[in-house]
């Protein structure tokens, strides 16, 4: 058992940290990401790919600390993992080069985060499929060249790659609370041919479920970064902020609150790693994967809410101000908390995935598979 980073991992961590610490507001840094090779994390070797969930964690944690507003999770992790598992190397290559952008459209009204709740249909017409339905809160939809859309093919769900400018698609873009590019999509009889199938017919849900777990783990890493920075900012602020002639950080009630925030950050750190490890070592065990990742998101949601709310509280009025950073971290944390499934959704998913997993079952690894015994 060993938590030390390899030289390569240290290299990424530091370069991302440098970027995140700098000025990255507004303008799109995608080409730079491609150059730095960050878009190749998790890609196969033949595409110059390297690393996996751990490297993604190291990157996203720093993105969180720097409040980097980037489509990285939606592009490289969510779309990337779908394309990789579906072995669509030619598409993945363009993603890695940064020449093509993807948007995964899986959620539907009333689906409440569930990728299986799909009403959109893909009806076969000879060699082609015709897609009709509505997708909501699609990340990066307005910048994407290609949409990856889930649709019902009979009882099962399949994925299709569709040019964003294809006829009969209407996009209603809007900005989420924290300024991310989101859109609702309407498909009215969109024609695609069988070559546009991503993965085998009917494998859509499995592909999505797996890729969503990768993306959720990445969000947990971002949440960790957001939280750890909020804690540091709060500690710093309470040390310099004077009240009644002393720094407010000298008040025991606030000290204990910050100690509790620290504990939550450490638990969040643990589950972020747990999720990444699970993806690494339980890639072939979907039950353990779901359990590990959902557990992580549940803890992240709980810890993030506690840390965020108290960061605001301990900053006082200034924490409420748009001009001061902690408020923006709190808002992003609130979104990360619910993106791809909030605590309620994931605790239900966790319970459902318990299945046979016995508490203290003899031969589990320390990673993933909550309710397991170290082995």
């Amino acid at each position, binding site marked *: 058992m060993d938590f030390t980073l390899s030289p390569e991992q240290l290299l990424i961590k530091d370069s991302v940290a440098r970027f995140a610490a700098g000025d990255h507001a507004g303008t799109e840094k995608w080409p730079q990401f491609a150059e730095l090779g960050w878009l190749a994390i998790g890609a196969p070797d033949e595409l110059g790919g390297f690393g996996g969930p751990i490297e993604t964690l190291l990157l996203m944690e720093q993105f969180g600390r720097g409040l980097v507003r980037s489509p990285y999770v939606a592009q490289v992790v969510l779309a990337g993992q779908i394309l990789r598992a579906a072995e669509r190397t030619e598409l993945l290559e363009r993603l890695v080069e940064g020449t093509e952008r993807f948007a995964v459209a899986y959620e539907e009204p009333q689906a409440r985060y569930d990728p299986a709740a799909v009403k959109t249909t893909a009806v076969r017409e000879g060699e082609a499929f015709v897609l009709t339905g509505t997708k909501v809160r699609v990340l990066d939809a307005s910048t994407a060249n290609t949409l990856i859309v889930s649709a019902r093919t009979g009882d099962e769900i399949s994925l299709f790659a569709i040019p964003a400018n294809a006829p009969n698609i209407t996009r209603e873009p809007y900005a989420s609370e924290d300024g991310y590019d989101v859109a609702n999509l309407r498909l009215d009889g969109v024609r695609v041919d069988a070559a546009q199938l991503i993965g085998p017919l009917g494998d859509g849900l499995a592909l999505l479920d797996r890729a969503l777990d990768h993306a959720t783990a990445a969000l947990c890493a971002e949440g960790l970064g957001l939280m750890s920075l909020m804690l540091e900012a709060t500690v710093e602020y309470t040390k310099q902020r004077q009240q009644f002639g002393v720094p407010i950080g000298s008040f025991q009630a606030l000290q204990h609150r910050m100690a509790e925030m620290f504990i939550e950050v450490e638990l969040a750190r643990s589950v972020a790693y747990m999720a990444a490890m699970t993806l690494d070592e339980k890639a072939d065990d979907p039950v353990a994967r779901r359990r590990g990742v959902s557990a992580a998101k549940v803890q992240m949601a709980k810890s993030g809410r506690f840390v965020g709310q108290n960061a605001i*509280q301990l900053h006082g009025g200034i*924490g409420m101000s748009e001009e001061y950073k902690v408020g923006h971290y*709190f808002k992003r944390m609130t979104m990360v908390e*619910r993106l791809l499934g909030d605590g309620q959704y994931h605790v239900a998913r966790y319970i459902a995935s318990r299945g046979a997993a016995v508490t203290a079952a003899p031969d589990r690894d320390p990673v993933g598979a909550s309710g397991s015994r170290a082995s």
Partner: protein
Amino acid sequence: MDLAFSPEDRAFRDEVRDFIATHLPADIRRKIQAGDHLVKDDYARWQRILFERGWVASGWPKELGGTGWGPIQRHIFYEEIAYGWAPRLLPFGLHMVAPVIIEFGNDAQRARYLPKIASGEEFWCQGYSEPGAGSDLASLSTRAERQGDTYLINGTKTWITAAQWADWIFVLARTDPNAKKQEGISFILVDMKTPGVTVRPIETIDGGKEINEVHLENVVVPVANLVGKENEGWTCAKFLLEHERTGTAGIAGCRQQLETLHELIAHESIDDPRLDERIAQVEIELEALAFTELRTLAAESAGKRPGPESSILKIKGTEIQQALSELALDALGPYAESHLAPKYFNYRKTSIYAGSNEIQKNIIAKRILKL
């Protein structure tokens, strides 16, 4: 022991309820039901209507236009305002500066300011918090130099609600820089149109723009605008804060939130026993708090001065408001971002302002438990 309202109180409640139902402009009610931001004119129109009915100056002496209500009637009135989707009466003139002018001001000041405060012809804002201060009010650094029969005021005040609408601001300023902390502070009324007064909006994380910073740069104010004695402004400030802190727990507002929440859940046809239980827990706590408020009102009516017990109402009232805004967020899950997140963000402030909940707990520990 009798906990039902008296027939008179019930009659009063019905009277207020009917009046609001028949006199509140429909466009204003719609705005509030939709959760839209109100503009100055909305507040002004509504205050004018209540003023003509003689229902604005609760807590003022009758001879100065006060309503002559007891604590329970006052409570009933504000509850009905909330239930009737009516705008609140902005407190900065009516319930902050006015009581101070009444208690510490001179007759000229009473004659000059009170009528226009009551009618809503002049809007006020508060000028006590400062960037440096916060819960530790007395550590303010705004200066007011006596120069003959004027004061020269320099400083910055912050977290000021509705300053962009205000005609007047009441300012706590240091008139004796050598005196220690609480001493050497004076309570001065400043016309917002005076040269050197600038208002800068502070955008809050929920996108709101009602909070402002007010800069006072070489602002010249006649000494006649001093309320009470020079260097004794802290007495006014303490008096004013007591007033503010004996505020209501916002029970009615919470009940409205709860009602909206139940409607949302019915509308989205969400069926989740875990959520039902969390809501029921908050609902029960709200009822317990409502009853607690009634107990303190009964005590007040029996002549007891509102005391530190009001800290319970502040702490629990704001905790419940925040819990309800979280529940709404959780109930709607993915559909919440757009319209409910801002409310959730906005409500974080309730545990910070008007004496943070930590300060309130200090008050309970020191003044009730004598720790």
